[in-house]
């Protein structure tokens, strides 16, 4: 091995390490607390749905993000494969992530796995239900219904509270 290839290897290691540490910083910042609304509690087979809410829309905002927590108390993995609602021409399960400074949003084509015995939280900055082609504005204080489609357990319709435009944060969130 000559010095040049050592240089290449060492550089690759250093570059790799810096990317890895940059990634850690990103992950440390996802802390959008949403813990005050354990309202509706929907049992659907082995699944428990809680805290469903949709974000109020801004004027002319034709899409809306919705969030909830799904607990799988069963022994089989479940898959959230789709979502639909009367108020939206199109509904999908999406993943949002920050890559360095860039917000990326992708449809989860295969669906979102809810592993047996585990809880998956859809929350701002991560997984969400994406409603597009909205027929109506999402008005804070109202509730809307949407139907979640699970691969094994089938569909379930649940209500979503429409919550404020300003993102909810922990009052004393100091970036922990």
């Amino acid at each position, binding site marked *: 091995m000559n010095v040049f290839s050592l240089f290449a290897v060492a550089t690759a290691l250093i570059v790799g390490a810096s990317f890895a540490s940059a990634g850690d910083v990103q992950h440390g910042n996802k802390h*959008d607390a949403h813990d005050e609304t354990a309202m509706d509690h929907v049992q659907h087979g082995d699944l428990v749905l809680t805290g469903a809410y949709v974000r109020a829309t801004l004027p002319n905002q034709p899409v809306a993000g919705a969030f909830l927590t799904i607990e799988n108390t069963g022994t089989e993995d479940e898959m959230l494969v789709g979502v639909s609602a009367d108020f939206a021409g199109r509904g999908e399960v999406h993943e949002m992530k920050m890559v360095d*400074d860039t*917000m990326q949003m992708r449809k989860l084509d295969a669906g979102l796995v809810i592993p047996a015995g585990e809880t998956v939280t859809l929350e701002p900055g991560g997984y969400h239900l994406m409603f597009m082609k909205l027929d109506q504005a999402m008005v804070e204080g109202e509730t809307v219904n949407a139907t979640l489609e699970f691969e094994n357990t089938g569909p379930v319709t649940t209500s979503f509270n429409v919550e404020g435009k300003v993102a909810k944060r922990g009052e004393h969130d100091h970036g922990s």
Partner: protein
Amino acid sequence: MSGRTLRLAIWGLVAVNVVALAWVMVISPRMTANAAGKIGHGEYTLAATDGTAFTETSLSQAPSLVFFGFTHCPDVCPTTLGDILTWQEALPEARDMNIYFVTVDPTRDTGDILKDYVGWVDGVRGVTGSEEETQKALEAFGVYAARVDLGDGDYTMDHSASVFLFDKDGNYSDRIRYQEDFDTAVGQLKALLGT
């Protein structure tokens, strides 16, 4: 591996480390500083929803906040607008800043649509224009934006999510990262405004 090769290898690694250290400590920060000074500068002409043109000279009227987004945005863009509202509440001086929301999706985000969209936060001006001028502005700010097709003609946009801060002379000063801690963000604004 012979002793000579091993020694060579060790010295090689030492040399690599010295170069890497120099890069990290000296060269890279200088390059970043140079690039940072140019952020926001370039030839682009877009239209703001208050009827004014948005060009690089718009940045030197008063301290400014500039961020990028689009109305078909479920999460980041409403969150950022909401954050700006809370910053304004905490720091009344921030209301005198020029605040621009530049769409990365000018095809769908016309001036009329943007005007109402940003309208619920006082003082925020929407900015849109042709695809070409938007592209020039994105380059001037070093902002990444890319269309991601969702099928059936629908699409979403990946985009940089930071809020850029400029001083009253139009020089880039800092950026507030997406979902930055509230106190940190307000501290950055205070530093910018000298309060």
